[in-house]
């Protein structure tokens, strides 16, 4: 680890963090727009939304919620570890987070392929023959969970980058802004799922 040259270049964690939060605000409104559409159509087609939510597997939803919550804790712990100069633990915590993220994605894969088996996907003849409200429900379901899954994948890439940066000594106890901001991104992914889970899987 080379700390002597680390301070010669520009490093401003406060500004980076504010920049990251500003980006997260735009992300919140990206999903917020979809939540808004969900709220209005749920109001209009409550019976169809009720039926659609009933069809989703609440067990997989609950399992994935638990997985994401644990992964949020491990990524937070990795920041504590790096601040306490425990690089090994920090890397291990990130690895656990990535494994949990992959478990989440695997579940999502099974969940989606189960629906594809029944020819239920956006634009399919089976879906188009459903009542109007259910078309909207499944459309929103695929759009929201798909966009969320894309964020999980981006989060995995960010965390992998962090592992390499910690190993090469570019991220350490005095310079962990990258890990901190990646952690914020990961928590946002968790945050969105916390709202998605009851709205799509539970409220029937």
């Amino acid at each position, binding site marked *: 680890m080379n700390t002597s040259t680390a301070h010669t270049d520009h490093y401003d964690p406060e500004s980076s963090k504010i920049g990251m*939060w500003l980006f997260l605000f735009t992300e919140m409104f990206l999903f917020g727009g979809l939540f808004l559409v969900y709220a209005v159509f749920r109001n209009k087609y409550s019976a169809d939304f009720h039926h659609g939510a009933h069809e989703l597997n609440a067990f997989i939803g609950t399992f994935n919620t638990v997985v994401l919550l644990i992964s949020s*804790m491990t990524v937070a712990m990795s920041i504590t570890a790096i601040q306490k100069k425990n690089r090994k633990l920090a890397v291990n915590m990130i690895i656990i987070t990535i494994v949990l993220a992959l478990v989440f994605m695997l579940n999502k894969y099974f969940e989606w392929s189960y629906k594809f088996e029944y020819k239920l996907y956006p634009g399919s003849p089976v879906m188009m023959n459903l009542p109007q409200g259910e078309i909207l429900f499944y459309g929103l379901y695929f759009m929201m969970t798909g966009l969320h899954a894309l964020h999980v994948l981006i989060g995995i890439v960010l965390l992998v980058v962090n592992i390499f940066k910690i190993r090469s000594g570019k991220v350490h106890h005095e310079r962990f802004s990258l890990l901190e901001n990646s952690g914020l991104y990961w928590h946002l992914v968790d945050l969105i799922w916390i709202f998605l889970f009851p709205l799509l899987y539970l409220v029937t």
Partner: protein
Amino acid sequence: MDKKEKHITSYSLFAKVLVALLILTTISVLITEIHFGALSVAVALSVACVKVALVLVYFMHLKWENSFLRIMVAGVFLLFALVLVFTFIDYLLR
């Protein structure tokens, strides 16, 4: 950066927050099993809001951030609430 020392959150606090989040998840799953009708939406969303608050305050470190950031985050949530309210005022009064 060196004007105040950085706060280091303990592992045990994160673990406690996770336990609280898991308990809240269990509550929301159990409550929707009972079928309160329209009320279950409100209950499920209230529980979700508490969970989101826990994640924001502890995991996302807002408890130890300066008030500038905290006010901004609160403002964004308020803005979204306003957008939601105005959309429904428009939608319901058509």
